[in-house]
């Protein structure tokens, strides 16, 4: 009988201990996070053209020797000219991400210089890392580092170079939002083989910028 009493006591004590364990107070802290990513974006704020003057005899055209050798020199006549227009690109985000240039009444030896002024519109600083020039006949070349080679190519499909470009020293620029737009320029020269009366020679220059911290 005494044995049964000891067993019962032990059981009560065990259950009591269990009760203490269940009654331990507890609480939980939560951490919730929201991540908003930044944006890499830029657009042309403006552009300038050295010779935009059509049929204006008071401001002559500019010429230069092949290979951009020597200084450009001004002629006495205004014959050729270049016009430009800033438009939104394929992404339709409202930025002026494309500059359409039209080279009017070109002739051999004609020279012009174009300057674009890009601004950073995203909140992540950007590095301008490369510029790729190409045409519809398979030519493509990318400027990535100084010194920048002059590049000539065919824009009329006759396998003879008609035009040459010289890129300015601008790769590696870092631009923050709110910075004054830097000048990025390139030069154009019409070569001797350019045919008369050609109206649809195309070229394209893609300027790529990447987030500042991963620029090569």
């Amino acid at each position, binding site marked *: 009988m005494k044995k049964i009493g000891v067993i019962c006591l032990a059981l009560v004590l065990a259950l009591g201990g269990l009760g203490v364990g269940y009654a331990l107070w507890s609480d939980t802290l939560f951490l919730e996070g929201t991540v908003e990513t930044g944006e890499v974006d830029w657009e042309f704020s403006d552009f300038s053209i050295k010779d935009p003057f059509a049929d204006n005899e008071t401001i002559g055209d500019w010429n230069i020797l092949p290979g951009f050798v020597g200084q450009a020199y001004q002629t006495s006549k205004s014959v050729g000219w270049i016009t430009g227009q800033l438009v939104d690109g394929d992404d339709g985000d409202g930025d002026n991400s494309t500059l359409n240039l039209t080279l009017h009444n070109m002739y051999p030896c004609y020279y012009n210089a174009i300057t674009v002024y890009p601004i950073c519109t995203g909140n992540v600083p950007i590095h301008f890392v490369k510029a790729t020039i190409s045409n519809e006949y398979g030519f493509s070349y990318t400027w990535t580092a100084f010194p920048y080679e002059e590049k000539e190519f065919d824009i009329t499909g006759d396998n003879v170079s008609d035009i040459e470009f010289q890129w300015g020293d601008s790769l590696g620029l870092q631009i923050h939002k709110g910075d004054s737009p830097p000048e990025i320029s390139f030069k154009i020269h019409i070569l001797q083989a350019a045919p008369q009366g050609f109206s649809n020679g195309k070229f*394209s220059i893609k300027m790529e910028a990447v987030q500042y911290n991963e620029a090569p």
Partner: protein
Amino acid sequence: MKKIGIICLALVMALGAMGLGYALWSEVLTISGTVQTGDIGAEWSVEAYGDNETKDVSSCVATGNGSDTLTVTITGAYPCVGYYVDWNIEGTGSVPIHFAAPSIDTANMPSGSTFTFTKMDGTAIDWSTVQLHDGDTQLGKLTVHLDNTAAENTNYSFSANLTYGQYNEFP
């Protein structure tokens, strides 16, 4: 089994690294260009032609309006008559042109004949100063005169070639 585990781990890490590469943010600005070239051009027009004979025996006719060739035909010619053509060259291209000195060939003319290619007043044209823009003109006169060295019933010929080029590189 352990080997397979290591391979799987390497694969996962490689894919992860690739993901980082693709995640580089970038944005492209585009400059697109269209090139339209101009052209050079010039053409003849005939203003007048004739002779100074006192009887209507021979004739001088010129044709070639709007073309690059001026054709002069003198028929029934005889000595001591002056034949002339008043011509005009008009610039027709969008790029101005300069002229080289004309190449005149009178080797197949009688030795004593005269051939001139001048301004309307008979003075020489300084071709190095002639520039024609689209629509500009240069007037001139061509004269042919035969002397007594000319043979009867004989065909003679002459020619003048004018080469021109874009204003900024020629001649």
